[in-house]
Every structure is written in C-alpha cells, then in structure tokens.
C-alpha cells in the first residue's frame, strides 16, 4: 500500500493546464492529513520543475517518440510506470476527455478502485473521500476506495489555483516499455476547431441559448457574439440542439456536457430538470427569460425577466465596453 498523492498534470501547446495546478494545491492539503508527498505525473513531455510552485515535490515524466501523439494504450502504460515509481495511495486526475479515456483501463489493470467526476475532496480516517454528483447532479454522494490504490478524477474548476511560490519540483524521467497492443488504437489525425475556445467542461465562463433563439442564424448572431465578448464558451440547451440551432457538442445538460464554470449565462432557457442537472454547480448563474415563472429563476444568482433579443445585445455592448 503506497503513500502520498500522485497528480496527473495535463498540458497542451501553451504549457501545463490549470486543472493540474488546482489538483496539486488540493493534494498538498490532503497529503498533510493522510501522509506522504505530492508527486506530479507528466506524460508526453519532459520536465515539470515549475509544478513545484503549486505543491509537487517531484515531477515524474514519460516522454519520447511513443508519446508524440495521444494513444490510450501508451498513456495507460506510462501512468502505470509512473504509479510504480511513485507508489502513491491516491491518483488524482482532471475529469478530462483523455483522462476518462485511459484511466479506467489502468484502474482495471491494477485492480484499483476508481471514482469519477468528483467536485470536492476531503481527508477522513487516513483516506481521501470524494464528494461527487451522480444522476448528472440530481444526487450527491461520498465515494471512497476501501482498500488499495484509489484513482479519482476531479471536475475542472473544483478548486482554486493557489498563489504558487513553492520550490521547484525535482524532475525525474521514467522509462516506459510499451507492450504489444499498446498502440492498437492511436490518434491518426486531429481536426482543429475553427476558433479556439475553452472546452465547455473546462470553461470558466459559458453563455448558453435555448430553443427560443428560434434559428441557427440567431444563435450565431446573438449567443456566440455575447459569449465572445467575455471570452466565454457558447453552450445550448437540449431543445436548442435538437432543433438544429447549435451543434450537439454545445449541449449542456444530463445528456450533454456537465459544466462547472464561475459564470453561466442562460439566455432564453426555461431550466428543464435535465438542463439544470448539467449546470447547477456553476458558481454564478445569470438567467434572461421572458417568463417570470421559468424554473431557471429559482437557481439563478441574478435574473432578468425580459426578452433576450433585446437584453443580449445590450449586455454584449456593456461587456465589450468593459473589456475595451
């Protein structure tokens, strides 16, 4: 049985992602209670000394030609090697689309217990207990792994990023021997998005439209520019997506993305239970709707009972003046 906490730190062209900093900060607090060190796991690049600023004592990395592009098998094998080197009690990872792709494979291989999509963590009785939404946020429960390694994915934006300032982490390369079949499924191409915005699940700000936008053209001329004015990711209700006004990848709700932003602006969304399920953990919710009895107002921090066709352009103008 290992000790300490291993944190998967994802990165892209711009460097390490914020999700890793959030988890390292929380892991430092948890490790103080359950014992052991905080170690960063880095796959696909070397280094990671700067992760020390957020609490990692050591950064273990697996890099090289096998990791030039993402593959489920190589990533699982790399983290397996890093877990063997660090021997942690708990592995924390962001609930990202890649982590959710390869971590269950590793959990099955190691016979580890896995908990997905935690929104809070605490130490209790020497263990890490995860608080997590289930039924897309219609119910919450504590989950813990009774014995052996625990692998926990945590929803982005669940914890603040600390001020940093810790000492540099000790860098250590871990060699990984891939096995037959590890590259059986691999990324052969990546289709880049036309515009680069944060993914809904990681977005700090989201502006969503409902079916009452009435057309794809109005979604594009009303919702997207309002979102762009504050660097937000555009979202949509299921009704809006099913009507063809926004692509399915924009859907927020129980059968779409479950989101956790600081600011969620709902335009013309009534607040059906399946939509609320996807966004109710947002820190601040703004609702704009003509119907004062719409359920969304019971969940909104700030509400405007009004016509979004009038309010949204005014809001956009006000936001643009702020950003200017």
């Amino acid at each position, binding site marked *: 049985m290992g000790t300490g906490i291993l944190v998967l730190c994802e990165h892209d062209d711009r460097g390490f992602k914020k999700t890793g900093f959030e988890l390292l900060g929380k892991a430092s607090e948890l490790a103080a209670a359950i014992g052991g060190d905080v170690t960063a796991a880095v796959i696909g690049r070397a280094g990671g000394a700067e992760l020390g600023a957020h609490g990692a004592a050591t950064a273990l990395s697996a890099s090289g030609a096998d990791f030039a592009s993402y593959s*489920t098998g190589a990533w699982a094998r790399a983290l397996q090697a890093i877990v063997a080197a660090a021997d942690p009690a708990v592995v924390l990872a962001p609930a*990202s689309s890649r982590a959710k*792709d390869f*971590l*269950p*494979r*590793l*959990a*099955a*291989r190691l*016979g580890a*217990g*896995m*908990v997905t999509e935690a929104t809070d963590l605490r130490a209790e009785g020497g263990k890490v207990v995860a608080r997590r939404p*289930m*039924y*897309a946020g*219609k*119910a*919450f*429960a*504590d989950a*813990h*792994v009774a*014995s052996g390694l625990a692998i926990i994915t945590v929803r982005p934006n669940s914890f603040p990023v600390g001020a940093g300032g810790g000492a540099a982490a000790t860098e250590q390369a871990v060699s990984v021997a891939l096995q037959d*079949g590890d590259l059986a*499924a*691999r990324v*052969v*191409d*990546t*289709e*880049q*998005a*036309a*515009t680069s*915005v944060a*993914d809904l699940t*990681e977005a700090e700000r989201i502006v969503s439209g409902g079916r009452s936008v009435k057309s794809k053209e109005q979604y594009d001329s009303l919702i997207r520019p309002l979102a762009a004015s504050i660097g937000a990711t555009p979202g949509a209700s299921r009704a809006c997506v099913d009507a063809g006004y926004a692509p*399915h*990848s924009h859907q927020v709700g*129980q*059968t*779409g993305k479950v989101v956790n932003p600081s*600011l969620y602006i709902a335009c013309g969304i009534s607040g059906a239970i*399946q939509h609320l399920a996807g966004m109710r953990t947002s820190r*601040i919710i*703004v609702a704009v709707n003509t119907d004062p009895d719409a359920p969304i*107002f019971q*969940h909104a921090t*700030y*509400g*405007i009972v*009004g016509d979004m066709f*009038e*309010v949204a352009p*005014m*809001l956009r103008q*006000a936001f643009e003046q*702020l950003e200017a």
Partner: protein
Amino acid sequence: MKVGVCLKRVPATDTRIKIASSESGVDTSDVKWEINPYDEFALEAALLMKDAKQASEVIIFTVGEKGAEAKVREGLARGADRAVRVEVGEVDALNIASALAGAVKGEGVDLVLAGKQAIDSDDSQVPAMMAEVLGWGQITEVDQLEVDGSAVKGWRNAGGGSRDVVATTLPAVVSCDKGLNEPRYASLRGIMKAKRKKIAVVNAEGGSAKVAYSNWSEPPARPPGRVLDGDNAQRVSELVRLLRQEAKVL
C-alpha cells in the same frame, strides 16, 4: 461480424431523483425507466451496420436483475437479434465490465458498442475497463464512426472544439456520444417480433466492489437569487455592476 451492444436501463432524464436515505442511496421504486440515452446511439450504430449487411448479428448485453429485461426487449424491438442478461453480485464499474467482457467473449463478438456513460452513476468507466479486460483496442466517446472490414475509425472530442481521429482494428470496444446518429423508434412489427426473441441469462463471478458510496443527498440548495428591477438598460448595467463588484467574475 457479430456486434455486441451494451445496454442499461436508467431513470428517465425528466425524472426527479429521490434519496431513500443518506446511506441507501436513490429510491428507484417509482422512477420511469428508459434506455440509457448514450446506449441508444450505440444500438443505432449497430443496427445501421446490420442494415448495411456489415453486421451478421446484433446482440444486446445487459447487467442486472430480471427487471432490466423490459428495456432490453425495447432494444430487441428496434431490431437487435437477441440478448444476454448477466447477473453479478456486488456492483461496481470493474465488476460490471468484467461480467460484460466474459459474456461478450462467450458469444464471439467482434465489435462492442456501448454508451459513453450511463446517466445514473455517470462513471464513464465500463467501456474502457471492458476493453482492458478483453485485451482489445478502444475508442471512447465517438460522435462519428467508420468500420471498414477490420479497420475502425472514430472521431472524438479533444477539447476546445477540435476532434481526434482514432484508428484501431477489430476486435474493439467503441463508446458512443451524442451526434453519432438519430436512434430509430421500434415499429409495431418490431415490437411483435421482439416478444419471441431470446434473452439468455448467465451468471458472472464478481469480486467485492472497490468503491463504497455513502452520505447520499439531494444537491445542495443554491442561495436565493435576485431578480433585477428597472427597464432593460438599467437591469443590464446593474447586472454588469453585480458581476464585477459583488460576484467578482468579470
């Protein structure tokens, strides 16, 4: 090629979830069940392969008690050929994945299609765990899929609106996201035919569950909000002020 489809019944998306007690979890005694929406995309993908003569047989696999069969029957009515229901002891993602993997192997399936997650436990673990237990390749959360002979290609969200194109070869497990297709309804003829289709029952040895759940509750109540007064111009400027000064999110 034989195509397996993993199917789970879940409380309907418009159902309010009631907590029976903080230790026992959700009260499902009077929920309306439906096929997990993501499993519907998996089933439809399999049925499209059958329509195109790519699949010789579509077999539904489910884990659960007898009560789970009603929704399996609905899948059969849409066009699947037969089903296997697996009974397990303690339920968690790894036990379910192992049970399904055993049943899939027993039927000689070449391609497993599953929903990307079930909308009750929201684990999104079972498909990848199955692939690991079977020693197969996997592509998870695809919203576009091509199967050509033994070559499989899936498109999945890679964040920020870009998509990864993942290639693998059969046998493989593919988990399905919204956007993959438009699930069909069962025809009256399909419903009649489904009554005679076979649902086999097998037992799986399962270990003890690794993950323990407790302290169930309804979602924390949000602090009461505020509806802003005035004309639209006043409300907008008040909103911007509140977002900056009170909420500090701008």
